[in-house]
């Protein structure tokens, strides 16, 4: 295809992506080094027969004029990145000097909002990605063993947790494990503790969010593996059996190598998706116990005062995190492409 024709065909999608994906990334980066204007303070002298007092007042007019003239705010450099809400360099230094050992330093550092959110996001990603792929693999093996007539309905029900809106899937589970819900009551009964509540306990909340994550992303792994299992070469399987391979051997030495490329692909997609975990935290009302980076940004943006600069700084840090996460793939593609 000629460059010219390519250009015209590609123009609409390129414009959309430039304007609404590339440009916001730049805009976020710029926003993150500006802070909102402080209010303009004027000194007012009040003179009464008993003498004069000076007091300071907010000059609403001037403040508004300044904000309208420079909507971005005032340039502050990296200050927002380093403040308490983000990288908290100063606080970390103090903690480091005050902490008796590494463990207590870490546990205190995790109380800083940004590090807490980062810790949850990473834990969630590291747990949900492998576990959901594993669960999906076992489901795929089990469905593959079913008679053909039963496979359709099984696949239908298995797809549901993935297809349904994340916020809604989270809500449905949350209502069930709520201390007044059916599963919540059952958990209380099991633990023999009638006051036990997911909403009140950090470890339980983290567990529930992870369970939700696995529940909602296992179907994807299942479907991909199930399709992969249909393409396994039967000859190889049969010759392995003739050579005396047991069932486990066949899984280990024939199926798994065949499914390996699928696994890398899926791990990549799931890493990207799990890293931006967001909706379940809203549906589980988990903000008191677990915050993710995305939720952190959302919280800054919402509410009465929109903290644009703070949200922008977190966004830039999140984007950096994604680049780090994706870098192995990017480097590998770069190398492969160099070879070809």
């Amino acid at each position, binding site marked *: 295809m000629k460059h010219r024709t390519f250009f015209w065909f590609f123009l609409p999608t390129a414009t959309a992506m430039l304007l*609404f994906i590339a440009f916001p990334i730049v805009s976020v980066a710029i926003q993150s080094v500006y802070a909102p204007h402080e209010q303009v303070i004027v000194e007012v002298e009040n003179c009464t027969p008993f003498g004069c007092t000076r007091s300071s007042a907010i000059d609403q007019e001037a403040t508004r004029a300044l904000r309208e003239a420079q909507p971005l705010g005032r340039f502050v450099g990296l200050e927002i990145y380093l403040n308490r809400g983000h990288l908290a360099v100063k606080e970390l230094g103090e903690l480091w000097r005050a902490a008796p050992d590494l463990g207590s330093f870490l546990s205190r550092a995790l109380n800083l909002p940004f590090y807490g959110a980062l810790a949850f996001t990473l834990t969630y990603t590291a747990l949900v990605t492998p576990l959901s792929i594993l669960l999906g693999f076992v489901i795929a093996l089990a469905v593959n063993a079913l008679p053909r007539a039963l496979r359709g309905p099984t696949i239908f029900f298995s797809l*549901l947790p993935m297809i349904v809106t994340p916020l809604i899937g989270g809500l449905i589970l949350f209502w069930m494990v709520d201390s007044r819900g059916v599963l919540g009551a059952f958990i209380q009964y099991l633990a023999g503790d009638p006051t036990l509540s997911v909403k009140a306990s950090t470890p339980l909340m983290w567990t529930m969010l992870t369970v939700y994550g696995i529940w909602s992303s296992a*179907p994807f792994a299942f479907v991909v593996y199930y*399709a992969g299992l249909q393409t396994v070469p039967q000859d190889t399987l049969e010759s392995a059996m003739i050579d005396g391979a047991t069932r486990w051997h066949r899984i280990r030495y024939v199926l798994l190598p065949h499914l390996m490329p699928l696994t890398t692909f899926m791990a990549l997609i799931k890493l990207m998706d799990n890293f931006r975990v967001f909706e379940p935290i809203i549906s589980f009302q988990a903000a008191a116990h677990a915050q993710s980076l995305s939720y952190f940004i959302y919280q800054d943006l919402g509410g009465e005062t929109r903290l644009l600069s703070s949200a*922008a700084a977190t966004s830039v840090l999140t984007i950096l995190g994604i680049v780090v996460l994706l870098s192995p793939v990017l480097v590998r593609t770069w190398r492969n492409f160099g070879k070809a």
Partner: protein
Amino acid sequence: MSSVAHRRPLALRIALSGFLIAWLILAAFPFLWTLWGSFKVEGDFFSRADWRNAVFGTLTLAETGAPFTAQGYWGAWVKEAFWRAALNSAIVVVCVVCISLTFGTLGGYALSRSPYRYAFWLLLVALVFRAMPPVTLVSGYLLPFFEWNLWGHLPTAIIVLVAINQPFTLWMLTSFFRNIPKDLDESAMVDGCSRFQAFRHVIIPVMWPGVITTGLFSFLLAYNDFAVTAMLLSKENQTMVPKIASFLGTTQTAGNVMFAVASVVSVTAPLFVLVMFFQRQIVSGLTAGAVKG
């Protein structure tokens, strides 16, 4: 798989079926439970005293005189004007699907037919864009949108969703167009068609299976979105998912959690129907990228 050698031992078969039944209960039960409970009053849905209340609707019977009630649905759809959110959702979803498929087919076709290196790099850039969490992008939109008075309107959310949708659409359609033999459009061009005419008369008639599959996923993305619609739409333009989230904030005090439950069921119902009719396309779409590597 029917030969004797492939037959599984009984113990393994029992274990596999047991596991599968457990998984199916895990996957389907929450939905059925919520659907059943949405026709009860709050005291039954959250039946702390006795879980059997939720099944038989003891309190519902006592409060309304019937074992089922549509109070939740009435409250959500009529009193809280959920129909307006549903209408907004319909507008957003239809527009997003149409526009992103139009852009996507053009771009995906170009990428699949270009022999040059930049096509590959463009796909890689799209992959990086695909990894961006929508909420980070939203924080980049807010200030310009406020400044230019674009905030709060449906078209703004639509075009933003289209853009966020593009990387995925491009990937899927490119891999789909690669499977349509090049000879098809090239022979049309030998016969004197321009590139666009070849696309119009030769490719468009045969591309529908791939476009429908991709369209399903665009639909899901637009329908399920929360981050963009919650932050970019004003209250009267809200779509269904942010509307449900707003129920959660206000209704705890009013004792109207059932509004949220009813609207959750209403939002899930179309998805059920969708999976029922398009199961094959969804499965093939999910695996298309994966199986071919």
